[in-house]
């Protein structure tokens, strides 16, 4: 196997709060190969967004990456000085955020902001830059792109704004895009358009992507591999089809079983009892144990990552094939 594009190992990010040290990302390890879409799935507070921010070196005090490593093509990114990180951010790794209304500067035209993003990493004449911007905007499905460059964010709809945000991420043809819930704020019909667009982009450009989402269905239609996060840790990861068809961790199986599409209309849904734990008061062992139907004494110790072929999971009592979740 060729070396992965991105290798994250034991990444740990902590925030100092009044209630004590809050470990938002707790020893997270995964790899992303070139051209691969990695789905990072979890509920709010599971640490998936902070993982994305940590990779990009965007954690501000009181937060701090306290351990682990992030290597891009072998180059260590953790602890990289600001200038060196800025040379990578936006050029080799770009990010798309959830809310395009917050990402774009409301007082600058689309062309002005995209121009700033271009000149941050490249020397390009004004005319050439505009040409490039229009081409990228057209690529993400914005009609009449050359004229739209002079428009301001408020003149675009939510879906179009997200396309602009994706276009900005694409300007320097990055190796990796980290997309944080990019379709959550959009309507289903617009979400389907963006998903279709992203899918063909990945296929054509061969860039890699980390798609962060709470929605298993969206992830399942895009991702080659899936990592499931719970309370700051990855509890299970592997090829998307394998994880979704035969989940090993009981949190994953619980999430899948609770989907309404899996049940007869009107029938009681399988539900995971309780709520995610507070990160400042994690149980000593498996964080999912208090909500898990199979938890016993063994779960009071932290389960180790168990490797099975291309998959890993962290569960003392993994779901067996044929067992009803």
């Amino acid at each position, binding site marked *: 196997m060729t070396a992965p594009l991105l290798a994250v190992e034991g990444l740990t990010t902590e925030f100092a709060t009044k209630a004590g040290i809050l470990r938002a990302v707790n020893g997270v390890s995964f790899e992303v190969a070139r051209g691969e879409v990695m789905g990072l799935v979890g*509920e709010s507070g599971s640490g998936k967004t902070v993982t994305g921010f940590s990779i990009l070196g965007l954690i501000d005090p009181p937060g701090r990456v306290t351990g682990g490593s992030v290597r891009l093509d072998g180059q260590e990114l953790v602890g990289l000085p600001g200038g060196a990180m800025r040379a990578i951010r936006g050029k080799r790794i770009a990010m798309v955020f959830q809310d395009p209304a917050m990402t774009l500067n409301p007082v600058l035209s689309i062309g002005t902001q995209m121009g700033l993003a271009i000149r941050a990493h490249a020397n390009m004449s004004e005319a050439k830059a505009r040409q490039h911007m229009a081409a990228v905007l057209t690529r993400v499905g914005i009609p009449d792109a050359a004229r739209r460059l002079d428009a301001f964010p408020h003149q675009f709809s939510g879906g179009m704004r997200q396309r602009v945000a994706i276009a900005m991420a694409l300007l320097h043809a990055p190796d990796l895009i980290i997309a944080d819930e990019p379709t959550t704020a959009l309507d289903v*019909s617009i979400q*389907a358009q963006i998903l279709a667009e992203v899918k063909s982009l990945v296929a054509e450009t061969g860039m890699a992507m980390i798609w962060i989402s709470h929605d298993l*269905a969206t992830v*399942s239609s895009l991702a080659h591999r899936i990592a499931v996060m719970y309370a700051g840790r990855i509890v299970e990861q592997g090829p998307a089809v394998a994880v*979704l068809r035969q989940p090993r961790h009981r949190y994953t199986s619980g999430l899948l079983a609770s989907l*309404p599409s899996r049940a007869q209309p009107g029938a009681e849904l399988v539900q995971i009892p309780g709520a995610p734990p507070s990160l400042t008061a994690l149980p000593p062992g498996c964080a999912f144990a208090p909500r898990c139907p199979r938890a016993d004494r063994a779960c009071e110790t932290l389960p180790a990552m168990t490797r099975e072929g291309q998959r890993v999971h962290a569960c003392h009592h993994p779901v067996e094939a044929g067992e009803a979740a």
Partner: protein
Amino acid sequence: MSATFLELSAVSKRFSPRLSLGERIAAALGGDVETRTVHAVDGVSLTIKAGEALGLVGESGCGKTTLGRIAAGSMAPSEGIVRLDGVPVIGPGPHPRKLTTRIQTVFQDPFASLDPRMRIGDIIAEGPIAHGLVSKDAAAALVGEWLGRVGLDPSFASRYPHMFSGGQRQRVAIARALAMKPDILVCDEPVASLDVSIQAQIVNLFLQLRRELGLTMLFISHDLGVVRHICDRVAIMYLGRIVEIGAAEAIYGDPRHPYTRALLDSVPKLVIEDGTNVVFKPIQGELPSPLSPPRGCHFHPRCPIAMDRCRGEIPALKASGTQSAACHLAPT
């Protein structure tokens, strides 16, 4: 009993900005003043039978929340009337009052809908005490009963909303609505802001409460999966109009309106085969501005099968079997 219970007849709601003094004078003199009127709801008629759950589905801006507020009697329609058992739910005049306590609402965001300075017990008891449904002395027992019914510990009554998670807060909001002993519950996106693992808990709670209390529900959501699970009938809304309505199995199994079909196609499905082969069939274009909706059928600019007639003539809802669709080309 399956008689018509809640009836909306030709309900419309228009929002227009206040005109300035100058504009009002100009309008009074017969001048051409541009009024940017939004038709949030445009001639909607529907009925909900006792014990039935009707799902109202649409994308943001389609008017589903406005229609929900009108159905609940908390907003007066510009035209048309809403009746519960034949009696209007809201009074006349420029500042109309809701006339019934038999319809209650559960809102989307339990972080915004509960007063952070009130104890849970007071939040739940406020309505019933104000309306004389319960005496102050008996209120504590009522609160305890409802907290238990929605799956919370009765001792939580003395706590404040900030001490609860989103799912628990939504349970409190449901208890508050139900403590008024409503016959109809209007739920506006009640699970949209909850975490995935919590959504199933609240969906189950709705199912359980429907069984136990025989609740009639208007369930507003953009989530087609949740609606399918909870509702007997479904109405699909597009730019202020109902484009299709009928039994849930019929709508999901055999959608007649091209918008319904496109919407169902857009919902991401969990793929457990090789997901990288999934082909999306998105609807073309975007929701037009409600300030200037297209003439004729509102959906025609995005419709794959639109013809000339769709550009000029508004299609009426035509019934066939257990469903009705507002499309010139719908099979009958």
